[in-house]
């Protein structure tokens, strides 16, 4: 019989404070491939597991700049190069009239980039993920908090990890297959 390879070992908590303590101890013990799962955002927790910076703002800024530029250049090109039209003797490059569409395109591209960038960096949509192999994991969207030390961690050794996680105030500790 072939056993499925291990994805990691997962501990379950019933309150955020115990999860926070456990995450800090685990990170201080030198584990780096770990993730915590919560029903609502806990800002401090990301810091504790060593996740400090995200590139979402950069993606959003890039999207906004691209949107603004394309909006303005499109109007410039249409009114000066593709089909110059003399309307009441106004200049072809009547930039004040172009500001609104430029602004709207900046917001449109910036907003779409923020949303799609967030999903992309998060690796969503994800049709399959090993954490769902833990049957108790479905309560993560309800009232439970999880901490998972992944087998990919260089320090990972199933026995040691299990012992470490069991030393916390947990509800359950489970091995999660890949």
């Amino acid at each position, binding site marked *: 019989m072939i056993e499925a390879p291990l994805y990691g070992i997962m501990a379950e908590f019933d309150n955020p404070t115990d999860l926070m303590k456990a995450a800090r101890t685990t990170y201080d013990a030198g584990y780096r491939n770990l*993730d915590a799962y919560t029903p609502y955002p806990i800002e401090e927790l*990301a810091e504790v597991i060593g*996740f400090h910076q995200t590139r979402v703002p950069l993606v959003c800024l890039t999207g906004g700049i691209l949107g603004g530029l394309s909006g303005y250049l*499109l109007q410039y090109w249409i009114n000066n190069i593709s089909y110059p039209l003399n309307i009441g003797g106004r200049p072809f490059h009547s930039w004040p009239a172009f500001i*609104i569409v430029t602004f709207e395109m900046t917001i449109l591209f910036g*907003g779409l980039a923020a949303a799609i960038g967030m999903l992309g960096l*998060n690796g969503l*949509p994800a049709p399959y993920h090993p954490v769902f192999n833990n049957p108790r994991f479905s309560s993560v*969207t309800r009232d439970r908090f999880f901490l998972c030390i992944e087998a990919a961690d260089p320090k990972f050794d199933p026995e040691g990890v299990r012992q470490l996680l069991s030393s916390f105030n947990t509800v359950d500790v489970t091995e999660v297959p890949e």
Partner: protein
Amino acid sequence: MEQGPEEKTIAEEQLLPGQPPVLTPGHTFGSLTDKIGDIVLRRPFTLGWSLGVAVFGTLVMVLVFAASYLFFRGVGIWGIAIPTAWGFAIVNFVWWIGIGHAGTLISAILLLLKQSWRNSINRFAEAMTLFAVACAGMFPIFHLGRPWLAYWLFPYPNTMGVWPQFRSPLVWDVFAVSTYGTISFVFWYVGLIPDLGTMRDKAKSLWTKRVFGLLAMGWRGSVRHWKRYEVAYLLLAGLATPLVLSVHTVVSFDFAVSILPGWHTTIFPPYFVAGAIYSGFAMVLVLAIPIRRFYGLKDMITMRHIDNAAKIMLATGLIVAYGYAMEAFYAFYSADRYEIAQSLNRWFGHYGAFYWTLITCNLLIPQVLWIKKVRTNTILLFLVSLDVLWGMWLERFVIVVVSLSHDFLPSSWGVYVPTRWDYAVFFGTIGFFFVSMFIFIRLMPMIPIFEVKTLLPESALKAEVAAHD
């Protein structure tokens, strides 16, 4: 972690004594999830809901019929003619898009201002925005004359080699409204993702699980995901804030950029935005008051929400009143005979009764909101909100129709009388709006579950871990 009913919510501690909390104490993570999720997953079909869908659904049928006949015969079936070429269609467009503004104000601006009371009402207010924008978007297309050529409004390479006129406010409107619709949808959907995960995990039947699972895109509540999620949400709020202010500004440009007396004023953009939020909050109250009653959500949509929304309505109503006063003052101060004539025409002309009704509805009656007893009496407040919606619709009618029907030359004056097809399309969109809301509240969690959880005291980290670092 049991929460006794005597324990306070976090938000309650920041309140002055005597004010109701934003979340009634006694809830736990589980009870919140069940209460909101069960409306979608467990609640049986009720007579009230079916009756509501039947009534408003009939109006949708009226809309479909009126629109089909409109496409068949053309805009001549409406009362519009030169000089009043912008009848109900533009009145309703401006009215609906204004109603949408409150949803974005609640979801974006109040988020940036860290108003925790927004958490329980933002989801359905955003849905309200989406449906209101959908209703608004129909009208310019109906009004096109050849609606099947609506795509000509967008710049795309075509065999004719021509492009939209980018110096026209009507083209600005296309960009403003389509951006507003898109970003409102993205904001609403991003806000839904974690709750769709909750619904997926809560659902019992296989297909419900699959549908919510697909929509949740595999959300698993990872702390890394949450961090990116929160950043993206904040960025979207930051982008939606100038956007919402710009949309009604651009709508007001449709009028202000022209030279017609009564339209050509600089007060229009701020006055339109304030009016939009005014009517939007009236619609929020018209929806929130029955929803909290019939779905037993008085512990999540508390009197605090109702009271705050009423206060915002009062404040924006006063800004609108200032707009009316400045409009009149400006006309006479300008010493422009056409502006003066237009003001007198507004007050005492053919549509004078409309003007005084709108002043009564928008200016006089809402002053009762100064009284706390009215703000906390849901029935009175509901009636005042309906009054404001009616008043704001009249305001748009007075702006659009009175100026057009009475321009510079007496030879080009005329009177606009709406036909039954004008009314059919208008009431049809009201039906479309409410049917969409009815369906939404039974299909999606109408209160953001994860955001309300952060209001619970048990979501706070104990001092020993929070103070570390």
